[in-house]
C-alpha cells in the first residue's frame, strides 16, 4: 500500500477516534486505533472509521447514562422540594395579602402569573417521580396534568360561554384565587410534595428521646389549635366569607387571615432548623390544610357545572363538567388518601404528632362572575 494512502487512512481513523469521550481515548484509544488500522487493512478504512464513530457515540451515550444514574436524584429532589414549596406558598401569601388589603381585588388586575409556576411544579413532580421510579405518583401527575390542561381549556371557556381557549398559562392574582380555579393549583404542589415525602430516607424506629415538635414548640401548638377554632367561629357565625355569594368591600377577611396563619405556620415549620424533619412536617401541614378547600372547591365546581349543564346543554360545558368531575375525583382521592396518609406517617415516624389543622379558611368568598 502506498505510504500516502496509509497516512490518509491513519488520519481518517484518528479523526474518527475523536468520537469517543476523552476518558475512553486516554484509557484505550491507542489500542483501539491500532486494532482499527489492522482491521482496515483487511476491509476498508471508511468502514472502520464509521465503526469508530458509531462506537464513540455509543460510548458517550453509555457514559451519559452512567452519569445520570450516579446523580443522587432523591437527594436532589428533597433539596428542591422545599424551596419550590416555599416559593409556591409565598405566591399564595402574596395573593392572600393582596386580597386582605384589597389591592388585588377584581378580575382585571394583572399581576404575577401562576400558570408557569404551576406547570413547572407539575413537570418537576412528574419527572422526579419517574426518576425515583414511583409509578403511582408519576401516573397521577401525568393524568392530573392532562386533566388540568383540558379542564382549563374547556371548562373556563364554557364558564364564560365563549368557545375559545382560555389562557392556561396566565392566571391573574385576584380574589378568585380562593375559588375552585385556584384550588386546582394545589394539585401540582401536592404532586411535588408526595414524591418528596416518599423520597425521604427510611425512617428509623421510634426512640424514646426523639424530638417531638408538637411537645417542644408552643407556636406549633398555637397555630394548630387557634386555626380550627377560628374556622369554627367563622362557620358558626355564618360569616359571609364561607357563603357562596359575591364579596363586598365591607367583608371582614377572617378566612384570609386564617389562611395566612396557615401559610406562616407552614413556612415557619419548613424553614425552622429546629425541626428534625422540616419537609415532612410542612408536607403534612399543607396537605391537611388543603383537604377542606379542595372538597369545597369540588362541591362548587360540581354545583355550578351542573347548573351550567342544565342551562346551556352545550357540548363544551358537558366536556368541561366531565373533565372537572374527573379532576375532582383525582384531587380528593389524592389529597385525602395519599398525601394525608403519607405525610402524617412520615411525620409520625419521626416523632412528630399529626398536625391536624382545619382549613375551611382557605375557601374564601368566590364571586362566580370573576372566574
Amino acid at each position: 500500500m502506498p505510504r500516502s494512502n496509509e497516512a490518509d487512512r491513519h488520519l481518517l481513523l484518528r479523526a474518527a477516534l475523536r468520537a469517543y469521550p476523552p476518558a475512553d481515548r486516554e484509557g484505550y484509544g491507542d489500542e483501539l486505533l491500532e486494532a482499527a488500522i489492522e482491521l482496515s487493512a483487511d476491509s476498508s478504512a471508511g468502514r472502520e472509521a464509521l465503526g469508530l464513530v458509531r462506537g464513540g457515540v455509543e460510548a458517550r451515550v453509555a457514559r451519559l447514562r452512567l452519569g445520570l444514574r450516579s446523580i443522587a436524584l432523591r437527594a436532589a429532589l428533597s433539596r428542591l422540594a422545599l424551596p419550590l414549596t416555599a416559593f409556591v406558598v409565598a405566591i399564595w401569601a402574596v395573593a392572600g395579602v393582596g386580597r386582605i388589603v384589597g389591592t388585588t381585588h377584581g378580575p382585571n388586575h394583572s399581576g404575577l402569573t401562576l400558570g408557569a409556576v404551576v406547570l413547572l411544579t407539575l413537570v418537576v413532580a412528574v419527572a422526579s417521580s419517574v426518576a425515583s421510579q414511583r409509578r403511582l405518583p408519576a401516573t397521577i401527575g401525568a393524568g392530573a396534568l392532562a386533566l388540568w390542561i383540558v379542564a382549563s381549556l374547556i371548562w373556563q371557556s364554557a364558564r364564560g360561554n365563549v368557545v375559545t381557549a382560555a389562557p392556561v398559562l396566565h392566571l391573574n392574582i385576584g380574589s378568585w384565587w380562593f375559588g375552585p380555579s385556584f384550588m386546582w393549583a394545589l394539585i401540582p404542589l401536592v404532586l411535588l410534595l408526595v414524591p418528596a415525602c416518599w423520597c425521604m430516607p427510611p425512617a428509623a424506629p421510634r426512640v424514646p428521646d426523639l424530638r417531638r415538635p408538637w411537645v417542644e414548640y408552643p407556636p406549633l401548638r398555637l397555630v394548630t389549635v387557634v386555626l380550627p377554632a377560628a374556622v369554627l367561629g367563622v362557620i358558626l357565625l355564618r360569616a359571609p366569607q364561607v357563603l357562596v355569594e359575591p364579596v363586598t368591600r365591607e367583608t371582614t377577611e377572617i378566612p384570609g387571615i386564617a389562611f395566612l396563619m396557615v401559610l406562616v405556620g407552614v413556612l415557619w415549620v419548613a424553614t425552622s432548623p429546629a425541626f428534625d424533619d422540616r419537609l415532612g412536617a410542612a408536607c403534612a401541614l399543607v396537605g391537611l390544610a388543603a383537604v377542606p378547600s379542595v372538597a369545597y372547591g369540588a362541591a362548587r365546581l360540581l354545583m355550578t357545572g351542573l347548573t351550567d349543564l342544565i342551562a346551556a346543554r352545550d357540548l363544551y360545558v358537558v366536556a368541561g363538567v366531565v373533565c372537572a368531575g374527573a379532576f375532582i375525583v383525582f384531587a380528593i382521592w389524592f389529597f385525602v388518601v395519599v398525601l394525608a396518609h403519607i405525610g402524617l406517617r412520615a411525620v409520625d415516624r419521626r416523632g412528630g404528632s399529626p398536625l391536624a389543622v382545619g382549613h375551611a379558611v382557605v375557601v374564601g368568598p368566590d364571586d362566580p362572575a370573576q372566574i
Partner: protein
Amino acid sequence: MAALTESTYFVLAALAREPMHGYGIAKLAGELSEGRVKLTAGTLYGVLARLVERGQIVEDRVEVVAGRARRYYRLTATGRELLTDETERLRATAKTVRERLDAQVERG
C-alpha cells in the same frame, strides 16, 4: 437471560480456547462465523467493554509488541457458563427446527 447477539456470541467463542487481543478476536470471530460477523474495531471494543462490565471477560495481560501495547482478554467462569448455555440453546433450537424440516420431507 436474553439471547446473545451474534457479535457477542462469536467474541465469547473466540476467547473460549485462550486469551486473545482485540485484533485477534475480531479475526477469529470472522473465521468462526464463516465471514458472517465482520467486526469493526469500534463494534468490537463496545462488545468487549460490555462483557468486562458484566464480568464475563477480564483483562488477562498487556504485551508490548513492536512498541505497541496489546491488551489480552480471557473468559471468566461466568462468561464460559454464558457461552455454554447459549451454545446449548442454539443446539436445542437447531435440533427442533431440524426435526420439523425432516418431518416435512417425510410427509412430502
